[in-house]
Each structure stands twice: as C-alpha cells, then as structure tokens.
C-alpha cells in the first residue's frame, strides 16, 4: 500500500497538473465512476491542424489515485495526434502510474482514460478490459 501512495502519486494529488476547464474548447467529455460516484470532466483544444491536441485540462473530485492518474495522463497529451490518443493502450497508463493497483481500485486509475476516450471519440466508451476486477 505504501507503494500505492508513493510520493509522486501523492504529489500529483496535492498539486495536480492541468486541473481546471478550458474555455473555449474543442472537445469535452464528463463521466463518473459508478463504484464511488467520483466525477471527472476533460476539455481539450486542438491545434491548427485540427488533428492534434494543443491544450488539455481535467476537473472533478475524486480519490488520490483517480486525480493523480488524470494529472499524469494529461501531462503527456500536448502535441499528441488524435489518432494516437484513440489507439492508446490503457495498460500504458497503468504502467506509467508505476504502482500496484488492486482490483477494487482499477476504475479509479482508469477513469481519466475513459473520460479522455469519450472526448476524442465523440461519445462514451466502455470501460477497458483492464478496469475489470475479474479478468
């Protein structure tokens, strides 16, 4: 557990990067984690090519894992092409978190991924298989 709340996770939680709402924005999506009621929204601005992300922000309230995960995920998005983002593997985000996430907390860790996919795919996407406790 002390692994789960490693300093860098707690640091992202206390001082999240890219927190807030972009206004105006090109893409927006909001979703929640049904197991805990946590809510998260994401707003994105595209660059002049309209095919890559120029700016991103997330907002919402939630646990340290979901907030740190959103902070870390959004950090890597600037300059990314939308088709790359759509093809993103949720495992990469779990790897980037670098801490062992128990089955009960996978949805916390992957809420940001789900919200991001909702934004870039233009509508709600299913939870990735990685979020299911039973696999």
């Amino acid at each position: 557990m002390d692994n789960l709340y490693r300093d860098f996770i707690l640091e992202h939680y206390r001082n999240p990067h890219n927190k807030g709402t972009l206004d105006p924005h090109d893409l927006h999506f909001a979703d929640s984690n049904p197991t805990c009621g946590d809510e998260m929204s994401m707003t994105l601005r595209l660059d002049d090519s309209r095919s890559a992300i120029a700016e991103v922000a997330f907002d919402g309230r939630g646990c340290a894992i979901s907030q740190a995960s959103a902070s870390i995920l959004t950090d890597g998005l600037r300059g990314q092409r939308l088709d790359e983002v759509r093809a993103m593997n949720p495992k990469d985000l779990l790897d980037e978190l670098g801490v062992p996430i128990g089955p009960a907390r996978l949805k916390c860790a992957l809420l940001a991924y789900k919200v991001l996919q909702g934004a870039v795919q233009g509508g709600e996407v299913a939870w990735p298989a990685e979020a299911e406790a039973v696999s």
Partner: protein
Amino acid sequence: MAIEPALSTHLPGAFSGAALRPDFAVFDTPTRSGKRLVFLDAAASSPKPRSVVDAMADAYSHHYANVHRGIYELSEDATARFEAARGKVAAFLGAPSRREIVFVRNATEAINLVAYSWGRTNLRAGDRMVTTQLEHHANIVPWQQLTREVGATLDYVAITDDGRLEMDDLRAKLAAGPKLLAVAAVSNALGTINPLAEIIGMAHEAGALVLVDAAQAAPHMPIDVAALGCDFLAISGHKMLGPSGIGALWGRRELLDAMPPFMTGGSMITRVTLDGAEWNEVPFKFEAGTPAIVEAIGLGAAIDYLTNLGMGAVREHERYLFERAWPALGEIPGVRRLGPDDPATHAGVISFVLDGIHPHDVATVFDSEGVAVRAGHHCAQPVMLRYDIPATTRASFYVYNDLDDVEALSSAVRATQMLFAG
C-alpha cells in the same frame, strides 16, 4: 448446535467480542499485510460463525433432498429442517405464525415482492406513498418503479443535519393520505435508529400501511413485529451471520392472503390445468421453484447463535463499542462524523469523512493496516446528496468486535492522516 456465549469481561449483561472470535474461522488467518483482521464491515455483509458453516455442510451431506415433494425419509427430513428454520425466523421476529414468513433471497427481494404484488394490486393512478431520504436504494428504487408504472406519487421524508428523519415532514407527508410508508428501522449509511413505534403509530393513524426495511436492524437489536405493529418487514440473512441468498419477508397474514403471487411456477400452486392454476396458501404461494433449502437452514443456525447471545445483549455490546468509538473519532482533528450523537438513536455504524482525503483512499490505507471498512455511497446516494459528499468511510460493529478494534479504528485514521499530510 449450541454455542455458549462468552462471559462478559467489561460490561454487565453483555459479552466479550474478542472471546467470540474463535467462533469465526475468518479470524484464524492474518491479512495479506500480516496484521490481525479488524473486520468493521458487517453492515455490508457479516462473517459466518463455524456453527452456520457446519450446519450447512451437515445439511448438504446428510439431510438433503428437495422439500415439500418427496414421499421418502430424506425429503421429509429436509422439509422438517427447512420448515424448522422458518419457525426460527418467525420466533426471532416475534411473528404470530411461521406461515407469515416468506423465504426470499434478501431484503431487496422482500421489498420487491411487496412492490410488485401488493403495490401493483393496491396502488392506483393518483395515489401516494411515502419513503424517506435516509433509505438504502433497495427501499427507494422498487417504489420509484412502482409509482411510475401505476401513475402514483412517491414522497420522500427529509432528514435533519444530524441524520434523523424530520418528524414534522413525516407528519406533513402522511397528511397527504399515502397508502404505504416504506421506512428503514436503521439507516445502513449513517446508523440512525428510527423511532419506529412512533412512526408506525403516526402512519396507521393516517391510514397508511407500513413496510419496515429491517436489513440493518434485525442483526443488531431485538425486533418484535407484533409489538411494533408494522405490516411488512424485510430482512437479509447474510447481514446477520447467515449465508447469502436467503432472507425473509414477514407480512400480516390477511395482507399476504389477499396478495397475488410475485413469481409463478412450481410449489406455489395447488392445481394446474391447461386453462390456469390455483394458488397454494401462504407462504408457499410466494415461494415458486425449489427454494434455498440449505441457506434457510444456515439462517436458522445463525439465529440460534444470535439467540444464544441474546439480541438485547448484542445491542448493548454494540452500543458499548459505539459509545467509545464515537468520541474517540470525534477528538481527532479533521474527522467529520455523520449521524446522531445520541447513542440511544445510533446503531453500531459510524460513517465519517476525513478532511481532504477521499474515502476510497481511506479504505485502502485502512486495508494495509488490516482494518476492513466500507468506502462509498453505501447504496444510499440520496443521503450523500443531502450532505453534499460523494462518499463516506463506514465502520460497522458486530458481536466479534471489541475495544481493540475501536483502538485499531482510531489508529488507522491517524495513520491515514499522517500519510496524506506528508
């Protein structure tokens, strides 16, 4: 099998929780982190004593056949044990007759049975019924579905800042002439003990029937439906030391007699022709198909265990722990407790929030300390809405808990705060 309750070491008339732990196999094994298991989540589902597990293994091994069917020794034996369990539930709830006990899967199914069978027969367009903002989703959603379907109105009784029902609001909602009031005996999310006798009196005076959701009360305090005077009462076996998959609906005989079946099929009929069927008498009219035979027997063993301790003593024991845990948490800065202060109106359930720390994180850190608690909305989102919080952490006591668990709870809170203070 009889269990001798351990003698009290700390409270006259009650028992030592720690001395009961050997009765529960789950406490034999330390947690993944190598700690003693501090189980504070009985409100979600309780551990099972060995006597319940043994009774079920014995029933499956030596006394199992289908019930109410076979004309042979084994089936008669199984039927007698199954029906004896029904009798234990009736006695446990103070029901005048065991025929008023309908076996169901859980309290949720019991409430759905009433909503489908009584509700769709008796509630009409323009009618009203009442539930409260304090309820578990199981005592809200079936009524939302029912009232939407028949065109009736569902009113909710508001709750106070300290988690009690607003009695003036209840009075006002009853004055509108509802046909039914569905109310919990004890709130699963906050631990509030509702003043049932007063509520039932008020409802009956207003001409409403009363369904009591006792899922959170029956495991922890004496229940007597005859003394309460309610009309329906629902319990879940798995919250009261019994197996999952078994619960009971108690209903007044004349109400049950007048109600149509909820589910149909085998056992619940007396005669079936190609033109139709005639219904069996209660409770069998409501028990279509092969029931959860061994689970019912397991529930009977759980009731034996609780009855041996005495439900009054169980309530005293949990009150004793609450009276120590509530102020212990209250004196830690950054802890917000929900629910009433008065231990007379608060069951052994403590719902709390730590400033700046999400309940999911709290429960995860607690888990690393060997402390099992529930974090979430506790299937009571309207309660969370009332206090504008997404979730709480909930610690709930039962018979095997003791002062060492109260201490473990406080230290887990401090450990969590320390980690997040960084």
